């Protein structure tokens, strides 16, 4: 994932960041910091918020996260979530 400040985040990563900015309390920071922030542990969104986030991205991209993906460490950051979404889209 392009978490380097030199690079622009991809389309999906931008969509994830935009979602967290509108639906949660994303703290100020560089794009790279926001991409790597564990958004749940940092309280950006709460437990009900995560359910809405899951449903939103499944609908938006026509995918379905497996329990294993939901439980993965990757799912907990915007960058990791974007990489999971891209992998699922690619598998279609």
């Amino acid at each position: 994932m392009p978490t380097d400040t030199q690079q622009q985040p991809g389309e999906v990563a931008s969509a994830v960041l935009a979602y967290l900015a509108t639906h949660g309390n994303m703290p100020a920071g560089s794009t790279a910091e926001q991409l790597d922030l564990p958004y749940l542990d940092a309280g950006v969104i709460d437990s009900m918020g995560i359910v809405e986030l899951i449903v939103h991205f499944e609908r938006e991209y026509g995918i379905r996260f497996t329990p294993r993906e939901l439980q993965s460490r990757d799912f907990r950051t915007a960058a990791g979530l974007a990489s999971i979404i891209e992998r699922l889209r690619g598998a279609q």
Partner: protein
Amino acid sequence: MSSVPGDVIVVPAGEDRWVALNVFARTCLALDGEGLLLLSGGEAGGPYRLWDVQRFANYEGLLADPTPFVRSAEQWPEPQELDAAALQELLLDRCLLVEDRAEYAARFAHKRSLLDMEHFGNFHQQLGQHLLLVRRENPGEWWVNQKFEPGQKAVRNNLYRAVQAYNLDRYLARRIQPGMRVLDVGCGTGFYANAIARRGADVLGVDPTAEFVAIAREHAAPGARYEVAPIGTENGLANIPDGSIDLAFMSDALLFYFHPSAPNQTADMGALLADIRRVLKPGGAFTSVEPHHTFWLLPWLGDADRPFTVMTEYLTKHYQVTASVSEFLGAILSRGFMLRAMEEWRPDPSYRDVDARAYEFGMQFPFWQLYEFQPA
């Protein structure tokens, strides 16, 4: 060096199959004898046969037998054949083996978020996580559906009917007089409030959940009314006059005052009990029907006619389903009530023909108890 934590038990499943359960992590796998040898530190060489019988044990209902797979090997998936390294990895994943004792001990804690799989959490957290993430179901709907037939016209013919509804019906038959004023606190969808109204009482059902109250109103029996009320908050029953109720009834709701089911839950037992005491007439009673103090949702083991279970907690709760006797009675008796009667409920004898194992288990371990209190 990995080792088997003391929380693991092994039960036979016939034909060289053994189910290893971690009773705290609530995980399990079925192994052949060679796999069992590997688990206990031996070297059989493999390949090992393994049946992945892991599932969320209480999905079928709070009262469903959590360990039917132990006895239904014919329904198991086909065995996998694994080498020693792959089996070792799976055993570690399920906490049947642990590598680091301190790391394992740290997993006994409440979940921090819906995605927290690291901590075992309490029962309500595990259930919510499973329903929302794996099954994608609304927990409120699941709760109602595991207890009632569609349309909520009857209790499903499971232990809710055979123990709770059966005994409650007998209690109400001798306790409810026509014209009595009854308050059902936490009435849910109104099933029991309607049953009380059908015996001629004038019933008010109150519940904090508006969607449950809407369903209750649709099905209201003559003599039953329903209101949304923030019970368990300061003056949550403010609309009910002092000294106006003969019997306050509460079922399957007090447990949440001892063990929160959601983060930031604010229900306050002191406020609730002060309100109940205030609305009771002199000589009035408060009847509580709750899951029994020994209700752990833990494995139903043993032969059908000699059931036993594995008791993992009583005074100090990790899994947090019910309060202990002293915790429960202490909370109520210290708030201006006296104990008048207590019953531990056995199943309806006819249920033996429906599910002999559940019947025998219920004969040994009561699933519910009834307490009747009066203002001191």
